[in-house]
């Protein structure tokens, strides 16, 4: 029998919490998630059952048979050698052309959306042009590309040309060592190749690539005429040369993509005519062939076109032209015109809403088996996922009206039905959102998917306007365009649409670790707990800090050193990208690049700089404890604390209790919150905002954890908040530390809402008690909570809705709990696909139950 939430007395009434679906009373608590998946068709049920998941954990792939392919490495190398002497951007276009023209393509049973980016659906490609260390790591692993000797020779060939080698020369070797070990800071992009992008899908779907080719050719014609004008003015006319190169590269890239899609069309037809015996499937394959012959060459006319053209664009932008993580787009907005054509107007590819839901499920499964050749570091920090795939829904339109539509609903329904961890969904919460869609958001939340992750629409819009002020060509987001934003990856908003979106990770992303920085701050910049080396400037030992301000000042210096170093590393990488890692296909589909003849890595119309402080709350709670017990109350000396920390609190248990029991974040405690607010706004945000990045804008903090809260926790010794060495750090960007938020969910909101200045985003994890959420009052409680959250101007919140019983059961018998999904940070994972260390951090999160004081604060009316 399922546990029912206990009755609550509220406003003189006893409120009971019967299940909304009475049938659920019969489902034991420890197996609920295994009853929630409901693929909408037999096809998606089959596709899920045979999905080639590529989840990784602790750097290892969870399923057998997953490995790196060699084909892309080989083709890239052949093209690089064959294109010597040509402009670099042309070489990049020719590399893409060769991959698309000569690479193996794949079609699988039951698929309606086709396309893959490696020579076998169990493989993923590698990118020797990015990081030689990453490829070497694969060569030393169980997933090495074969033949290994050839792969090794390719990596040797690329080493001097790689992004990593080209950037390393501009850094002190000591700084490189500090960056690479990922303890005070995340390693730079050039060392691992991790990347992100928001592809302008809209131009592909609306224009088609043939039109983009025509546009580029017209620009080339005009540019050549400008070049030939008399009298010659070298100071102006020479500027046409790189533009001509860029447009020519765009033409090569777009023609190659069209030809590649048509290879898929041919494959569908060949299989239909020579291999397939089922007449229905033959018919489907012939329709798929017809679609891939038409798109992405031509504009999309119906929803099948749009799903397919979007998928081809995704593959090229994220896996073939260059590696990029993410699935950033405002999917409901991108697809709605085609939904309308196919479902409402039935003018092309007529279908029902249910058919659309099936397509959503199929797209989710395509993402679920998409392989990413990302580095070991990134295979560790997204445990249980194949990569970060995150789409955005909801919010508001350019005119301020509700952005939800029937496509939004279909995406949410499909996600709930098929129950996959990828792609995650961000929902932009606005008071204008229609109730029917909010209900579907809630259904996903209470089913424990961990998504949609909720972002405050108004905060995002204002942020786009703010960054626009720093546009170096005075062409940042207009007030209307500021409504067109989606999350780039887990947490940070960025513009999306035909122009001005982020094209490379150098703009934002990567992390800095305040807990570890605090640890070295207490030790004169030295890391005794993990690397046994000097990690930062010498700013004095803890015993030297006579006042709390001295301590804070030393932290500030350590933090500032890291901040400038990491953004310098990103910008040096960006500079090299503009010279050697151009992405002509992306350029071709961006209206700005097309108009200006600019390269996508180079053009930055809308700055969007950010960096992620991760482990902030361990540092912040530690500062609170030290201020109270050492500087204010003088109960202990700093020397006593340092002795206790060096002993991992062993022999100092009473002292540890005091530090553990010091006020903690998330309880609306003024003492703690005042210190922590200032830490966020003046130090983390204030110091970061002093840094200006490539695009001319400030860099602002996006507090979020991925699973770096585990990795960095394990690289951080004991901390003054009472934490033992090696224990996980805090799991969000602004979430309270596990189990220390004891005053209820609205106390957490009150604390979090105090941090407003100098922030770009902050991740808030909350774990909701399952019985109350599945009760007849579940939606009303959640809705009232969300409105309160919104009114407090909090940026973000996301939920785990899973019982401890079920997680413990899954630890005992993993094979019986394949559908148990949990929210880790900016992504969800199957519980059984993550290490025990990480599983325990989910279990340790405080399960929030709403009580009368919360209902009161949320101004909630509850009926019987």
């Amino acid at each position: 029998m399922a546990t029912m939430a206990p009755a609550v007395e509220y406003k003189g009434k006893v409120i009971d919490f019967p299940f909304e679906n009475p049938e659920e009373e019969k489902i034991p608590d420890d197996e609920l998630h295994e009853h929630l998946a409901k693929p909408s068709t037999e096809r998606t049920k089959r596709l899920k059952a045979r999905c080639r998941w590529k989840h990784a954990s602790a750097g290892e792939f969870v399923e057998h048979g997953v490995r790196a392919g060699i084909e892309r490495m080989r083709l890239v190398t052949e093209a690089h050698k064959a294109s010597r002497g040509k402009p670099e951007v042309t070489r990049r276009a020719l590399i893409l052309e060769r991959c698309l023209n000569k690479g193996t393509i794949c079609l699988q049973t039951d698929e309606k959306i086709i396309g893959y980016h490696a020579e076998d659906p169990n493989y993923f490609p590698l990118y020797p042009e990015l990081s030689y260390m990453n490829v070497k790591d694969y060569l030393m692993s169980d997933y090495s590309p074969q033949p290994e000797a050839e792969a090794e020779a390719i990596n040797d060939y690329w080493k001097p040309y790689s992004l990593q080698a080209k950037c390393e020369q501009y850094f002190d070797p000591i700084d490189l060592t500090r960056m690479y070990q990922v303890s005070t800071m995340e390693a730079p992009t050039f060392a691992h190749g991790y990347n992100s992008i928001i592809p302008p899908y809209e131009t592909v779907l609306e224009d088609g690539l043939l039109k983009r080719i025509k546009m580029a050719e017209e620009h080339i014609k005009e540019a050549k005429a400008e070049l030939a004008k008399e009298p010659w003015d070298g100071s102006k006319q020479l500027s046409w040369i790189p533009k001509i190169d860029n447009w020519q590269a765009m033409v090569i890239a777009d023609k190659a993509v069209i030809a590649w899609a048509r290879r898929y069309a041919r494959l569908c037809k060949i299989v239909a005519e020579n291999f397939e015996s089922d007449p229905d499937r033959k018919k489907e394959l012939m329709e798929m062939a017809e679609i891939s012959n038409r798109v992405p060459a031509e504009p999309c006319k119906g929803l099948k076109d749009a799903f397919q053209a979007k998928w081809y664009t995704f593959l090229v932008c994220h896996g073939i032209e260059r590696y990029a993580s993410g699935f950033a787009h405002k999917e409901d907005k991108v697809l709605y015109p085609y939904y309308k054509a196919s479902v409402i107007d039935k003018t092309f590819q007529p279908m029902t809403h249910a058919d659309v839901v099936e397509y959503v499920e199929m797209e989710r499964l395509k993402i679920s088996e998409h392989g990413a050749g990302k580095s070991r570091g990134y295979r560790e920090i997204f445990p249980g996922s194949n990569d970060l795939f995150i789409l955005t829904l909801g919010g508001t339109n350019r005119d301020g009206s509700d952005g939800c539509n029937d496509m939004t609903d279909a995406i949410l329904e499909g996600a709930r039905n098929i129950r996959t961890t990828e792609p995650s969904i961000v929902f932009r919460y606005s008071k204008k959102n229609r109730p029917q869609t909010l209900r579907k958001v809630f259904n996903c939340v209470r089913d424990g998917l961990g998504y949609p992750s909720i972002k405050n629409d108004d905060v995002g819009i204002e942020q786009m306007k703010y960054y626009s002020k720093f546009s170096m060509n005075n062409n940042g987001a207009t007030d209307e365009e500021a409504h067109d934003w989606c999350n780039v990856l887990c947490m940070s908003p960025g513009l999306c649409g035909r122009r001005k979106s982020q094209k490379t990770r150098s703009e934002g992303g990567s992390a800095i670790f305040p807990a570890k920085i605090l640890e070295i701050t207490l030790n004169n910049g030295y890391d005794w707990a993990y690397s046994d080396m000097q990690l930062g400037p010498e700013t004095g030992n803890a015993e030297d800090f006579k006042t709390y301000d001295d301590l804070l000042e030393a932290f500030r210096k350590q933090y500032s050193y890291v901040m400038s170093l990491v953004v310098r590393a990103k910008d040096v990488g960006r500079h090299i990208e503009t010279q050697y890692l151009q992405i002509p296909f992306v350029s071709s589909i961006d209206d700005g690049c097309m108009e200006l003849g600019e390269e996508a890595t180079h053009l930055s119309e809308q700055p969007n700089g950010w960096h992620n402080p991760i482990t902030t709350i361990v540092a912040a709670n530690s500062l609170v404890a030290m201020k109270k017990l050492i500087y204010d109350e003088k109960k202990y000396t700093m020397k006593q604390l340092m002795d206790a920390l060096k002993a991992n609190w062993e022999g100092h248990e009473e002292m540890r209790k005091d530090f553990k029991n010091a006020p903690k974040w998330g309880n609306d405690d003024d003492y703690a919150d005042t210190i922590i607010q200032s830490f966020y706004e003046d130090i983390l945000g204030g110091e970061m905002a002093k840094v200006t990045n490539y695009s001319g804008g400030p860099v602002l903090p996006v507090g979020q954890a991925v699973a770096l809260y585990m990795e960095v926790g394990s690289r951080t010794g004991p901390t003054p908040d009472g934490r033992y060495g090696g224990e996980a750090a805090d799991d969000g960007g602004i979430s309270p530390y596990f189990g220390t938020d004891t005053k209820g969910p609205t106390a957490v909101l009150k604390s979090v809402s105090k941090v407003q200045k100098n922030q770009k985003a902050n991740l808030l994890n909350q774990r909701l008690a399952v019985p109350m959420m599945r009760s007849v009052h579940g939606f009303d409680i959640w809705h009232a909570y969300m409105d309160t959250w919104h009114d407090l101007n909090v940026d973000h919140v996301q939920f785990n809705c899973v019982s401890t019983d079920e997680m413990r059961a899954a630890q005992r018998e993993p094979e019986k709990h394949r559908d148990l999904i949990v929210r880790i940070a900016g992504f969800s994972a199957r519980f059984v696909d993550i290490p025990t260390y990480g599983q325990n951090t989910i279990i340790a999160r405080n399960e929030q139950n709403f009580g009368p004081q919360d209902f009161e604060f949320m101004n909630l009316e509850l009926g019987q």
Partner: protein
Amino acid sequence: MEVVDSQLHVEEGTVKPCLKCKWQIADPTNPDQGQCTVNRTAMGSIWKRWIRDVHNMTCSKHEEGKLSFREHV
């Protein structure tokens, strides 16, 4: 400086390099470096130590093998 066998130390050409040890997992960035995970608490926490050279460092806790992802961080 005195070498304590139970601590990670350099031993050029060792036949028990960290690379082959079950407690080692590769460095997140540089595969010639690594992370030692032998320090584990009863509560399940893992306090890692950085290994500068997985080919030429070792300690007395060396055990050949490989742990599953579930036993790492």
